[in-house]
């Protein structure tokens, strides 16, 4: 098809010159470049052969930072903390948010409007406000800030995302499908396990991964409620004054690569499924 069009083109359109690249394409590429340049910079500077503390100008190529990726124990600890917080947030928000979304999509109940409102408020409220409010709450109830409070805060601002994704899926789901399962002899738990949950799973997964991503790079709320706890973003912020070591670029690159690999696997699986 394409070949045929190309061959026919010179004969058909010699009169008018047409731009090969449309404005739309150009714009799309411009946006992609704009999005990708900082990431490319981060990756490039993880290979920068610097000697001092300043990783700002290109000095030459090296792989040595990958060998010394874990040279800063407190950076390692910060990364571990971030992963612990991220995974906990993903699991807790994933479960609570799914149940919330299921209830909000399926049942009519007293206070449904209010819970909708609260959910969107949690998403749209400025992070400084949430952070400050949570900190004063923890101080009031005399709770020591640290790992636990960070997880609580992260669950608080991510749970709505899961609930909204799951609710959207529930609302487009034919309730007859679950009735069919009941009709064929499944009790309510079996119906949930074999029919409802598998049908909601992609939405739950999407919500969970979004929670993880939001949690891993959260800075503002975490700053308020972290207390003594250090996380990856907090550590980077702390080190900006004395120069960010290339190890940060190395870890950033690794996190990026893991993300890309997961996305590719997801796309391939989705394509194979359909």
């Amino acid at each position, binding site marked *: 098809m394409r070949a045929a069009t190309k061959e026919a083109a010179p004969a058909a359109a010699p009169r008018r010159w047409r731009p090969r690249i449309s404005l739309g394409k150009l714009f799309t590429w411009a946006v992609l470049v704009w999005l990708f340049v900082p990431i490319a910079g981060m990756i490039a500077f993880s290979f920068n052969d610097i000697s001092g503390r300043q990783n700002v100008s290109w000095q030459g190529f090296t792989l040595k930072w990958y060998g010394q990726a874990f040279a800063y124990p407190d950076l390692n600890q910060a990364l571990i903390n971030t992963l612990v917080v991220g995974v906990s947030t993903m699991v807790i928000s994933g479960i609570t948010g799914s149940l919330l979304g299921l209830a909000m999509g399926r049942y009519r109940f007293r206070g449904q409007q209010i819970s909708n409102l609260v959910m969107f408020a949690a998403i749209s409220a400025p992070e400084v406000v949430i952070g400050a409010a949570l900190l004063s709450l923890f101080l009031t109830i005399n709770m020591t800030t640290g790992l636990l409070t960070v997880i609580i805060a992260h669950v608080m601002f991510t749970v709505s995302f899961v609930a909204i994704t799951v609710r959207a899926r529930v609302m487009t789901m034919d309730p007859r499908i679950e*009735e069919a399962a009941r009709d064929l002899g499944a009790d309510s738990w079996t119906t949930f396990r074999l029919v409802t949950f598998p*049908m909601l799973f992609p939405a739950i997964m999407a919500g969970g991964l979004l929670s993880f991503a939001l949690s891993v790079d959260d800075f503002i709320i975490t700053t308020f409620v972290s207390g003594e706890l250090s996380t990856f973003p907090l550590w980077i912020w702390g080190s900006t004054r004395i120069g960010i070591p290339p190890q940060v670029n190395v870890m950033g690159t690794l996190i990026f690569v893991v993300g890309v690999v997961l996305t590719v696997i997801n796309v391939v699986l989705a394509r194979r499924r359909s």
Partner: protein
Amino acid sequence: MAITTEETPAAHGAGPTGAPPAPAISLEGVGKTYRSGPGTVTAVHRIDLEIQQGEFFSLLGPSGCGKTTTMRMIAGFEEPTSGTIRLAGKDVTGVPPNRRDVNMVFQSYALFPHMTVADNVAFGLKRKKVPSAEIKKRVAEMLDLVELTDRARYKPSQLSGGQQQRVALARALVNRPSALLLDEPLGALDLKLRQAMQLELKRIQREVGITFVYVTHDQSEALTMSDRIAVMNKGVVEQLGTPAEIYETPATRFVAGFIGTSNILTGTVDTVSDGWARIGYGHGQHVLAKGDGTAPNEEIVLTVRPEKIRLSAEEPDANLSRIRGTVREVVYLGSTTHYTVRTVDDTDIVVFQQNSSDASNLAERGDTAWLSWRPEHSYVLPG
């Protein structure tokens, strides 16, 4: 007209041997009122039905008359607000759907989208803990019956509408329920496929001998397929009978109008003799109808089917109902011609005439013609 097939275990539900088997499904004074916002909606007023073992039974009625609600009460998704439902003689009040021995085929099919065709069909048997070798065998048999063996490993989204419909049917039938409930199962298919599937469903029902309760708003579908039909309107059963009974002797004005085409005539009874009421229209015109319980001077409504009426130029026999009119419209339809004739009292009567080779064109628009039919083809309707 109920066909009683070989005894299935469920047929032994009723008392001592020798007694007739309990009906597969019986409804006694069943009603359903939904709470809806501040008020209530009564979807089903009061239904009494007995559906026999092995019968192909249809619930026929216009949209919103309560067919789905009735079906969902039998399946156990709704509890009746009044009355009792029995399955094979046993009261099932409060029994959840997963513990009722009936299966449902949904109008939207409601297939499990994440499972293959074979897993969809096996779902019910797995819940019953049937040994896996037998599950495999029965699923294969069932896929063979609905001609989907080569689609066993496909997902529902990869099938056409007609194929999905057959999966839905197989998924329910494989459990060998005592009755299968089908809610407008062919509603989403196009006309040609629908007609093919009607014959297919009828064949399958004969082969497996399971009671079918079939919901439809399509009167021709109900007439073609059913052993018996309950015609519903506004939450009540207006008439219960075989397709022929319902077509030939509609019990109410609604049934007469809903099934096929009917001519409705009104008039005042002149005389009643030998049980025949006579309505005169002057000039030798009169209509006779079986008039038990009618009295002179009473206003009555009666009905006659268009294909029972004969159109002629010469005056018909006085034993027949006969009335004159002006031909208003002639529609030629190949094997038949439809005439619309306006009578002296300004009623339009529709007549279907077979087009036989000799009598090609009986009347033209504007002609005056006689209409006649045998008295037993008119029925006096209540109210």
